[in-house]
């Protein structure tokens, strides 16, 4: 005779599942969903920072933003910075993930040091970089000057400084470099998780079959972690596409408009300029692109997954 226990709501998998999901859903609704809906409402209104009455104006703000030559240039810069950064992030993250999944002395310390750029608050880290790349007192310039690369007769420049954040080319390189420095640890950690999850019997089998390092890497490891690599890339791209802190602290978009990105321009127009409606419209232009990118990448990841 079996004992039949009374029905309990938590016995129902659907109820338990919903309960477990609830905090995450609530978080997304409050932190992401509500501001997103608010941004849409702002984008279709004439709201200003001083007057938050929502008067519907149709697509006027979106038309004005699209007609704005600065916006088009900023949009192009944002895409360019994001794509170039991702190439380097993916390359470095793969190399570092492979290194950090090997056994060597001091591995845990090396991992700890390496994760710091990601763990450090971004504004704090950028103040550090602002000093490193200072137009007059950059320690990098000082080292180059001492080693004869800068100054009279210098190979890189006759000046005593390279003007990292003032020269159009170097300012762009600096911003991309700092973004790569900041985002690579996250991508590396995700890839390390992917590499650790590869069943050891597959790797053992490859070893028994005489597969060497590069062959194992290119034909076994990378294909197996491709889905997770796509996720790492997606995280990194979305974070960078919407970021404004790096350029806000380092260059404020200059010189000229070379480092002005979408997040910064939206902030300058919407908050600093008081034109909240157009600021919202500027930021919303990123949404369709990011959505399409996310769908494409998630589908790619799903197809690449080994079932």
């Amino acid at each position, binding site marked *: 005779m079996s004992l039949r226990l009374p029905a309990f709501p938590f016995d129902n998998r659907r109820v338990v599942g919903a309960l477990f999901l609830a905090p995450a859903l609530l978080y997304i609704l409050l932190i992401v969903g509500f501001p997103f809906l608010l941004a849409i409402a702002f984008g279709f209104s004439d709201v200003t920072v*001083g007057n938050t009455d929502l008067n519907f104006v149709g697509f006027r703000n979106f038309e004005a933003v699209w007609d704005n030559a600065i916006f088009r240039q900023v949009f192009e810069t944002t895409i360019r910075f994001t794509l170039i950064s991702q190439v380097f992030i993916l390359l470095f993250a793969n190399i570092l993930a492979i290194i950090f999944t090997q056994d060597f002395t001091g591995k845990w310390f090396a991992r700890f040091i390496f994760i710091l750029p990601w763990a450090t608050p971004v504004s704090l880290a950028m103040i550090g970089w602002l000093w490193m790349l200072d137009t007059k007192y950059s320690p990098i310039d000082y080292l180059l000057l001492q080693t004869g690369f800068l100054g009279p007769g210098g190979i890189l420049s006759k000046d005593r400084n390279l*003007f990292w954040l003032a020269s159009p080319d170097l300012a762009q390189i600096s911003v991309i470099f700092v973004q790569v420095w900041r985002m690579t640890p996250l991508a590396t950690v995700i890839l390390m998780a992917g590499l650790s999850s590869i069943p050891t019997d597959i790797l053992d089998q490859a070893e028994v079959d005489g597969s060497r390092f590069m062959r194992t890497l290119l034909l076994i490891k990378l294909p197996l972690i491709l889905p997770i690599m796509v996720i790492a890339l997606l995280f990194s791209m979305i974070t960078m596409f919407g970021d404004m802190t790096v350029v806000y602290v380092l*260059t404020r978009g200059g010189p000229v408009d070379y480092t002005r990105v979408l997040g910064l321009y939206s902030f300058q*127009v919407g908050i600093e300029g008081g*034109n909240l409606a157009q600021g919202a419209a500027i930021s919303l232009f990123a949404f369709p692109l990011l959505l399409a990118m996310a769908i494409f990448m998630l589908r790619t990841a799903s197809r690449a997954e080994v079932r």
Partner: protein
Amino acid sequence: MTSIIRTLIVLTICAAVSAASAAQDGFPDGTEISLLQWSHFVPTYDEWFDAYTREWGAANNVSVTVDHVNFTELPTSLAAEIDAGQGHTIIELPSSPASLVQGLHDLSDINSQADALFGERRHHCKAVTYLPSVGVYYGFAAGYALNHGNYDIELWAAAGYPEGPKTYEDLLAGGRAIFEATGIPVGIGISPEIDSEIANREVIWSFGGSVQDESGNAVFNSPATVAAVKYLAQLQNQAMTAEVFGWTGASNNQALVAGAASFILNPDSAYRSLQKVDRPAAANIGFTPALVGPAGAFGGTHAFISVIPAYVEGSQLQAAKKFLLDLAANYSEITYHSELFNLPCFPGTVTELDSWLDDDPFGSSPADKFAVLKTAIDRSVNFGFPGFSNPAIAQVYAEHIIPKVIAQVALGEATAEDAVALAGERIEEIFAHWRSLGLVGSGG
């Protein structure tokens, strides 16, 4: 008409009596005000100011707290507090918050009282607190900092200008000669930040150009602006390094203290920084008023604009207004403790100013180094000159359109005519937007 004037006089007297009565009796128990303002360039000023607020609070039965933050954070803090409907009672900003006018109290009453109590007011102080299109004083400015030339006396004397440059022609010729001979450049920023924005506008005004006219019409695209942009590009190419494209709020100070610029445009804070670390080097710095261009000489100002957000009510509002009026009355103390950085919008409040400028109480060598500022004061104008500051002017600044145009031309990426025309289109769009909201115009 007579009855309106009579009513206005009665109301003014009532307000003055009410303020005087409040001063005598103090405010109701529990009245609190909080201030948010920038960390002053002269650190001892903040110490004096905090002590002053405590004394004022004790005398008026008001609890006063003061928060000091970096000046770049103030506009966004104010915007956030207005949207939240709570925050500080008084916020002091170094730039006009005209775009927030609908979230701020109309301070016409204390502006009228200040006019009656303190007499003449510098027009540029009114122009950054009054929005003519809606007839509202959204702020109250009792003081400002004045941009002026700071030059290396030895370098300029060697170049044949013992009293420094007086015109923009002098600046180009002398600055170029010094740069070629010593490698020390002129330091005028062409970068998206406040010092560059003011310095760039000074040149444009002096060449006869401007962002708007007196009535708030966008007029940036003009031959005068093109000429000014060409001049600045030439100055950059011949007398400055690429550093000016990455100029920051600290660059003027850094350049002067390091002896790495022959000329900068800045209030006296950079000089005072140098004076504290190297008196002989400071003695080698001379001041010039705004340089003369083809259309005159116009010096930029940073007015210190106090605003009271609309969420402030009751006795708190009355206490805040009284605090601002009392502070204006005490501007002599402010000018002194800021080491002559803060100058009065109401000259009558600092009767000692001329004697301080003639004989610097903070040990400048020569003692009359600041005397030249008397001329500089007469050349001072506001950020939106020749019109009033308004939300469109604020957005043109926020988008950093002007330094961008000049940098484009200096880098050879566009002709001055094309760059100014393109920027002019964007500026017209911005003005059209704010005009459609009724917040631009009628300033003439």
